[in-house]
């Protein structure tokens, strides 16, 4: 319902336009006259301010400018219409469906285009971030714990093989990856079968022990991986806490032989070469690793050979095949 004042004002304005006087207008609405009068006076002032003339010069100048702009625009190629203004097309729903399907296939397959091209990228390559992002994306879409763990292990293996590839190509590149610490010595550690040189200026979390999951940032240089920073991601997990998947080979270890990682980890000297106690303890500790680490993280024989050659006699690198 409209306010009666609004209607009365409109009637009065129309009457004033037709030549009526203010008083005659107000006489139609005696109850509202007090409110209407100042408003109508303002309306009369606003009307008096109006000018109906149009300066000829302004009209001509503006007309010339507008027609010139039209002539210039005719020479220019029009910008393409946005897709929502391109008019109805019977093929449009099909086009949209096809686009959506193509994007879905691209996202799910991961075997085409950029992702495919990045699959062989190494650290330092332009496509390497694409490869790592794609891995992260696939991980985020994997909700089954076993599948996820399997994927993580395969990516960790991929990191190791990337570093070996960098060694082969004698490339000096920054690398970062996560791995399980297999042995610790003062100058060299072994993670996932990969030997890392520990310089005195490397930043290393104090709580890292054998069996810890760590994140390593380092640099490959002439066949050696130099650690710049090693950060603890997760401490060693007690064996009981690991659910063993059915597919993993089981290994019964007598309780009396079990050596917890925390017990071995406090003794870095035990891993030194020449120390007779180092090898058995390291071996036992690896037995206590989760079975996924035993099965998935075991470095390839050729890798372990390389390490044993490179490491010389300084580090007791556990031979991955010795357990089996």
């Amino acid at each position, binding site marked *: 319902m409209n306010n009666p004042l609004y209607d009365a*004002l409109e009637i009065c304005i129309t009457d004033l336009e037709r030549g009526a006087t203010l008083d005659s207008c107000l006489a139609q609405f005696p109850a509202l006259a007090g409110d209407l009068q*100042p408003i109508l006076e303002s309306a009369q002032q606003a009307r008096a301010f109006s000018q109906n003339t*149009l300066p000829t010069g*302004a009209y001509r100048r*503006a007309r010339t400018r*507008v027609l010139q*702009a039209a002539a210039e*625009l*005719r020479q220019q190629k029009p910008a393409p219409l946005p897709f929502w*203004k391109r008019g109805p097309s019977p093929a449009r729903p099909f086009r949209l469906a096809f686009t959506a399907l193509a994007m879905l296939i691209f996202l799910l397959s991961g075997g085409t285009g950029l992702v495919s091209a990045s699959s062989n990228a190494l650290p330092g390559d332009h496509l390497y971030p694409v490869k790592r992002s794609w891995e992260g994306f696939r991980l985020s879409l994997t909700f089954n714990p076993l599948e996820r763990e399997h994927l993580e292990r395969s990516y960790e293996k991929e990191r190791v093989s990337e570093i070996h590839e960098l060694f082969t190509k004698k490339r000096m590149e920054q690398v970062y990856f996560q791995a399980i610490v297999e042995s610790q010595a003062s100058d060299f550690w072994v993670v996932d079968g990969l030997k890392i040189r520990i310089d005195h200026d490397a930043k290393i979390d104090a709580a890292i022990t054998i069996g810890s999951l760590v994140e390593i940032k380092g640099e490959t240089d002439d066949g050696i991986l130099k650690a710049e920073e090693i950060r603890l991601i997760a401490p060693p997990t007690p064996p009981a806490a690991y659910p063993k998947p059915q597919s993993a080979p089981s290994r019964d270890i007598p309780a009396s032989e079990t050596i917890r990682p925390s017990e071995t980890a406090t003794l870095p000297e035990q891993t030194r070469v020449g120390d007779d106690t180092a090898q058995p303890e390291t071996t036992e500790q690896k037995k206590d690793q989760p079975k996924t680490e035993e099965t998935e993280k075991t470095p390839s024989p050729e890798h372990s050979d390389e390490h044993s050659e490179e490491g010389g006699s300084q580090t007791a690198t556990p031979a991955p095949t010795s357990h089996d």
Partner: protein
Amino acid sequence: MYTYGLPGMSDNIFSPALRYMASSLTQTDELDGLRRLDTRIVGAIYDRYFPEVFRFVRYRLNDEHLAEDIASDTFVRLLEATHNGRGPESNLRAWLLSTASHIITDHLRKAYRRPTEMLSDEQPDTLENLASTVEQRERGARLKAALQTLTEEQQNVIALRFGQGYSLEETARALKKNANAIKQLQFRALAALNRQMGEKQ
């Protein structure tokens, strides 16, 4: 009441044929010709709507030079927008007035940030007209100052209803609102104008 004629202009600007063309084109003809940038149609559209746009801007700014610039800018924007597929699809007059209103707002915003005093290059007034001209200018300046304290919508309603002489329905179409909304808006606009004028006197 709005007419398609061009009040205040000498007849030698338009030939009768052009005047007929400007008033006989349908909205569809106008929009089609505009998309093709057809010189005759663009000219006809200009002839038909420029006076309205010019007077609308002049009423809001009380400045003929600015009104000329802003009105011609409005038409150039119309051409550019249509050329790029973003032009009006139905109500050309509403599009032009709305664009002019936006350009005015932009201008006022810039002027508020960088206030300048414009020098008038108009012809000096004759002695006999001097008193009335001064009084008229003062009244105009007061009204302009009061108008500019209103909201953009309120200013547009006042400019269209009292500056252009649009009817309620024409104002509603130009502002893309219904008639009741315009009744309410004009009441509030005039009440606010009355308050502002009272304060400035």
